[in-house]
């Protein structure tokens, strides 16, 4: 499948460690406008394309997907700062409901350090048995991706990712 402009733009932006707000501030537009580009709802004005490609460190052809050469993106060598990591919890309940929670890792640490006890709530007992301290340690040591995958006897699944 051909890569859309939005996906390509987002890939270049992330490779340069820029946020949507960074781009928006640079061009005096709203972050929502940048989000629309990345979702292929709208496209940047032609008058800023040149500056945009310069900011992203790619050629105009690459930005527009007109190159046949593979784009070399420098991989991040140093581990991502844990302040910018997200802990994603995806719960697929056996009754068909689905819950996704995305929280900055720093918030999870804050909750754990504050020693707030999480009580069991409804059928989310499965979450209480997860050692979030251990997950944070794994994330800080550089592990990312899916770190936990649990399936309850009733079919409820819990996946935990670090991005």
């Amino acid at each position: 499948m051909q890569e859309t402009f939005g996906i390509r733009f987002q890939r270049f932006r992330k490779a340069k460690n820029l946020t949507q707000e960074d781009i928006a501030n640079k061009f005096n537009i709203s972050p929502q406008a940048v989000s629309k580009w990345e979702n292929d709802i709208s496209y940047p004005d032609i008058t800023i394309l040149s500056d945009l490609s310069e900011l992203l460190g790619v050629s105009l052809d690459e930005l527009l997907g007109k190159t046949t050469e593979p784009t070399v993106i420098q991989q991040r060598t140093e581990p991502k700062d844990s302040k910018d990591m997200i802990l994603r919890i995806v719960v697929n309940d056996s009754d068909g409901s689905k819950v996704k929670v995305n929280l900055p890792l720093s918030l999870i640490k804050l909750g754990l350090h504050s020693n707030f006890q999480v009580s069991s709530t409804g059928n989310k007992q499965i979450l209480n048995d997860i050692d979030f301290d251990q997950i944070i340690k794994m994330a800080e040591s550089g592990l990312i991706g899916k770190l936990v995958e649990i399936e309850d006897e009733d079919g409820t699944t819990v996946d935990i990712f670090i991005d």
Partner: protein
Amino acid sequence: MRITINKFTFFLPNRFIGYVLKKAVMNEDLFVNKTEKEVKDLFKLVKKELIEFKKRNGRIVLVDVKDSDGSRVKITL
């Protein structure tokens, strides 16, 4: 901050994030054995952390719940 309930989206200033999260969480008695002040202080910190995270990383979908009956609640900062 935007809160989507089924097909309706409500836009709220980010300063309400602490209030929204506190209400959402406290309704389920998620925290036990803590005073009102301790909980209030924690949510002040939570608000600060979230807003700083958003400044660094852009928009974040905090919660997305799809119920089996088709209803949906989504909170985006």
